[in-house]
């Protein structure tokens, strides 16, 4: 489209999609983003994705059985999250949205702990410092600023560009295509660029912000927005675990080296609903879903593993058994998530509590005790 005054619009051709594995499972190479993957690594990706998909399916089923109030489904985004999550080092820190079950898995968080927020037994049941994984962010985009600020702290600690792989640290801000419309995400891009902060903005473009399509968020490919802020952006096939891993690893290393922020757009598709309260048949066509089904991240890696002789029926069945065990455990342990202690809410508001809260707690205790006397 050419404007009569301002001339031609930027190139609107479909952007290049970094890909290392075709939907058919054929390994292809990329001049910049390529890696040699070991057999263990490839099998590891497969196991991670199968187990995380099971985690997601199981949690969805638990919601259907009334055990969870809500569940945001991950289905279809396994490759993006495992590829990115496995590119992180222990000292790196991730700031997730509420759909980052795969990244959480890579950070060593027990899947059952993810359920507490949605079961209503807690508000994020893990210690962020133990896993270098922040609590889920419900306000999409708010946490991208926390990631950027944390990265500014990493800089101040001198933990970038030292060349020591144990010390140099990167931060990853995860968000979706919808969040890119938020002011906070844009402000985080400004801050990251201004301070050259070691943060990777990992955007999973799953095409839908609940029912709003990508076209309602952006007229240009999302990764190109980074250029306007003054740092690189790249689009990767988010259903290709190898490509996502290679690109995110390069971006994280760039951050660790002190080269500043990168925006990675993982181009993928949310196969499930936004959350279990949603009905995607109201706003999207089944033909689109079928088209993306053919790009399934797990199927394509399995095809590649089989072709390379790295997996056979027995191997695949073994992973499936492991997934069954995970499912059984999630169903069992979900009920055992500790109930919150009501009177504790007064203690958790501040580090140093206040006389008012202490008085309200005492009044609550007395109120509860008054029922005990009646009984």
């Amino acid at each position, binding site marked *: 489209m050419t404007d009569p005054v301002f001339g031609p619009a930027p190139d609107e051709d479909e952007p290049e999609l970094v890909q290392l594995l075709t939907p058919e499972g054929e390994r292809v190479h990329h001049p910049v983003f390529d890696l040699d993957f070991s057999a263990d690594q490839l099998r590891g990706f497969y196991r991670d994705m199968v187990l995380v998909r099971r985690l997601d399916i199981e949690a969805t089923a638990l919601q259907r059985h009334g055990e969870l109030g809500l569940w945001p489904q991950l289905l279809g985004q396994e490759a993006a999250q495992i590829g990115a999550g496995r590119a992180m080092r222990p000292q790196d820190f991730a700031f997730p949205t509420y759909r980052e079950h795969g990244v959480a898995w890579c950070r060593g968080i027990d899947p059952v702990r993810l359920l507490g927020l949605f079961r209503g037994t807690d*508000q994020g049941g893990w210690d962020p410092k133990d896993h270098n994984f922040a609590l889920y962010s419900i306000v999409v985009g708010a946490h991208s600023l*926390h990631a950027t*600020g944390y990265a500014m702290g990493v800089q*101040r600690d001198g933990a970038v560009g030292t060349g020591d792989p144990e010390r140099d640290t990167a931060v990853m801000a995860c968000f979706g295509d919808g969040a890119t419309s938020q002011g906070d995400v844009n*402000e985080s891009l400004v801050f990251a660029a201004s301070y050259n902060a070691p943060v990777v903005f990992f955007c999973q473009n799953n095409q839908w912000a609940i029912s709003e399509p990508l076209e309602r968020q952006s007229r240009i490919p999302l990764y190109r927005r980074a250029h306007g802020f003054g740092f690189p952006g790249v689009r990767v096939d988010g259903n290709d675990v190898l490509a996502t891993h290679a690109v995110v690893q390069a971006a994280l290393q760039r951050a660790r080296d002190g080269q500043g922020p990168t925006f990675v757009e993982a181009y993928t598709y949310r196969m499930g609903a936004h959350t279990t309260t949603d009905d995607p048949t109201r706003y999207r066509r089944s033909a689109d879903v079928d088209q993306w089904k053919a790009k399934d991240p797990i199927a394509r890696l399995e095809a590649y593993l089989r072709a390379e002789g790295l997996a056979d029926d027995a191997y695949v069945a073994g992973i499936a058994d492991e997934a069954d065990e995970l499912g059984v455990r999630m169903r069992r342990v979900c009920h055992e998530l500790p109930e919150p202690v009501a009177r504790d809410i007064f203690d958790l508001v501040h580090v140093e509590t206040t*006389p008012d809260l202490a008085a309200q707690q005492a009044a609550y205790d007395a109120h509860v005790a008054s029922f005990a006397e009646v009984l």
Partner: protein
Amino acid sequence: MVTMTVAKALNAGLRKALEGDDKVLVMGEDVGTLGGVFRITDGLQKDFGDDRVIDTPLAESGIVGTAVGLALRGYRPVVEIQFDGFVYPAYDQIVCQVARFHFRSQGRVKVPMVIRVPYGGGIGAVEHHSESPEAQFVHTPGLKVVTCSNPADAYTMIQQAIACDDPVIFLEPKRLYHSAKADVDESAPAAPLWESRVVRPGTDVTLVGYGPTVSTCLDVATVAGEEGRSVEVIDLRTLSPLDLAPVYESVRRTGRLVVVHEAHVTLGLGAEVAARVTEECFHSLEAPVLRVGGYDTPYPAARIEDMFLPDLDRVLDAVDRTFGY
């Protein structure tokens, strides 16, 4: 003993905090070479470097949100919001993020940070430069809110707020920045941060103010004293948590209470003080608790701001009314 304005006292307090803990950071718009639009951070970047005193992009949500991340990394950011009316773009970060981190993480995560907000009117400013948003933050669980009315408090309270492990909204009465001047004994023991204080004893009626209205209350006490009325003046200092014990004690003696603030009267701090005093001191009250505050209008144009701000006459009138019951 050094004579200081509130502005100088805050500057000295910030300097002390920066010297005492290398995790303390000052950040905000124009806080570096300019020293802030009110010069509160004057000279700090020169002495502590731009890694400790950080000029930020012009984005309030970004300033507060990145400060959260810095706090999570172990720093103690002191954020300057340039003017009260500009705190609203950061409102989501303050209310949904800063205030809740400790609670959401079940006590595992601390977000020690101070959000400094120059607030209140009386300086002839344009719109969005004279707001009193304290009730919005007092109404938010997880935040602590304080304000100072004199240089000595400014000097110590800013340091105490920075040392606090909880997030603190520090409201700086901008019309006192350069007008309130007093001796500050930098070595004197500080009053506890979360305590209000009787600044002038009296026996007939209690006046409660905070920040910019304390000096108005003191003026009222002087004038009323000439008319034979003994006015006790209490400076709240801490707005969340509210320390009303000295107020209860006072009202039990005087039987009369007037609360004075610049913020809109409806659902302002005065409403809370009135409700609590009614609960605690019902049988001691000789008159209903009265409030004098800003009207429930947006802050007006500077040429008529005097009609909006609680002044000597409006407060004196309220004092008179409490004797009419």
